[in-house]
């Protein structure tokens, strides 16, 4: 069993530093296994948030060697033998303790999203949707809310002042899934532009790079939202065409 050197952040918002741990790694282990081994054998007070150990609960987000990842999905054989591995909390959010951060910003933003308001049922009292109507949005439903995309997004990671007016990639997925829903009746265009601040995104695609569910956040959600915003606020031809058509959606 090789011994691995781990540099794990210990501390809280008032102060802290990386502490070195040497721990044995078994074949097939992931970073979370080693964190648990450190917790069990060397630092019983090490704070770490985790739950499913299967990449589906989105709890164990961290920055491993500087890259936002799920600890439970990061295999140890990814790293070169003998090199130390750093494990830090996700830096985009306030520190609570050690590897645990306060992600409540995301819950604040979640509450602001105008919810789905479906159209009246058809004359026979039912709703009908075809597979092609929902193919697009099923991808977005894979989101496990690990908030790695929110963490890596430089719009808020490096510019705290933008947090007020920016929903972040996770909620652009949410907004796209609602906006593209075949039964939805809500016009979220003003919300997407002003409250969610999609214009702040400069599509550098880091959210897509770190998504453990491989959701094409930028290509399939953010850019379509930007294009829909352009329809509504920037394109004079679309604006003119809409003058001759009845508006199907109601403001949020």
């Amino acid at each position, binding site marked *: 069993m090789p011994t691995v050197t781990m540099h794990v*952040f210990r*501390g809280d*918002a*008032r102060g*802290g530093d990386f502490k070195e741990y040497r721990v044995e790694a078994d074949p097939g282990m992931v970073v979370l296994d080693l964190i648990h081994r450190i917790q069990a054998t060397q630092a019983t007070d090490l704070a770490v948030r985790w739950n499913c150990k299967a990449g589906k609960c989105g709890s164990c987000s961290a*920055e491993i*060697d*500087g*890259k*936002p990842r799920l600890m439970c999905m990061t295999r140890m054989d990814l790293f070169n033998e003998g*090199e130390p591995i*750093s494990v*830090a*909390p996700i*830096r*985009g959010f*306030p*520190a609570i303790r050690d590897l645990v951060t*306060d992600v*409540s*910003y995301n819950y*604040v933003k979640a509450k602001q999203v105008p919810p789905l308001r479906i159209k009246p049922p058809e004359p026979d009292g039912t709703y009908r949707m*075809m597979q*092609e*109507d929902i*193919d*697009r949005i099923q991808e977005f439903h894979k989101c496990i809310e690990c908030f790695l995309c929110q963490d890596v997004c*430089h*719009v808020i*990671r*490096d*510019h*705290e002042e*933008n*947090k*007020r007016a920016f929903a972040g990639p996770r909620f652009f997925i949410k907004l796209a899934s609602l906006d*593209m*829903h*075949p039964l939805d009746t809500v016009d979220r265009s003003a919300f997407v532009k002003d409250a969610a601040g999609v*214009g*702040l*995104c*400069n*599509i*550098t*695609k*880091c959210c897509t790079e*770190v998504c453990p569910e491989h959701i094409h956040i*930028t*290509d399939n959600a953010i*850019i*379509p939202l*930007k*294009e829909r*915003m*352009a*329809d509504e*606020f*920037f*394109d004079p031809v679309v604006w003119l065409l809409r003058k001759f058509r009845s508006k199907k959606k109601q403001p949020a």
Partner: protein
Amino acid sequence: MSARVTAARPPIAAPHLRRDAWWALPLTVVIVLGSFIVYSTWAAFQNAHYWAPPYLSPFYSPCLSATCLHVTFGYGLPEIQLPIIGILSPAFLILWGPGLFRLTCYYYRKAYYRSFWLSPPACALPDAQRRYTGETRFPLVLQNYHRYLWYVAVIFIVLLTWDAVLAFRFPRPAGGTEFGIGVGTLVMWANVILLAGYTFSCHSCRHVCGGHVDVFSKAPTRYRLWHVITRLNEQHPTFAWLSLFSVGLTDLYIRLVSLGVIRDLRII
């Protein structure tokens, strides 16, 4: 907004903890994109060696000004004279279209925001800009008009396809033209195919052709179109780079043939 949102971040002194070669990609983009900008600007200023019958450089197509040697659209507009510099070149009538299309392209935006703006240079690295307003203010808010540049780019695809068709029409020594295929013909077709791949895999194209629809089952043609463009769109970065190389290399090939540095081989 919750007060907790602005509470202190983890106190980690290092600006980033990445140990991989994160700088390799932005550096490559700067070198490749920078080289293309330098070459295309130089080529546009030359106003010579863009025509080696029957090949016309994409930088000079369509020929709109009276100085152009290619006869398809020539003899029309007056010559372009840049103020102060005083250089004439039909390329200046042309390159703004494809240039702005690439400048506002969603893929290239990612590339140059990362590599030239360093905003951010790589994921989980600090943004080099102290203040950040994204694409909400002038001039970057104009990126929202990308679709209009796409319309312009489609016109250029039509024109370059016409040039590629004319590349089968070789001049006879005795006068007139004859059908033929040269290496240059293949170069021009490869270029227009890659440029078309880039243009029709565009995110705005995807939206305009079908992405704006909410209920696809009621718009089956737009759904099929959107579906095809979505598959193409997955390769948009590949097309972006390959078409950049192809357009530069096509100009270079025609320039070298025109200069007599290389000979265009006739296949048929």
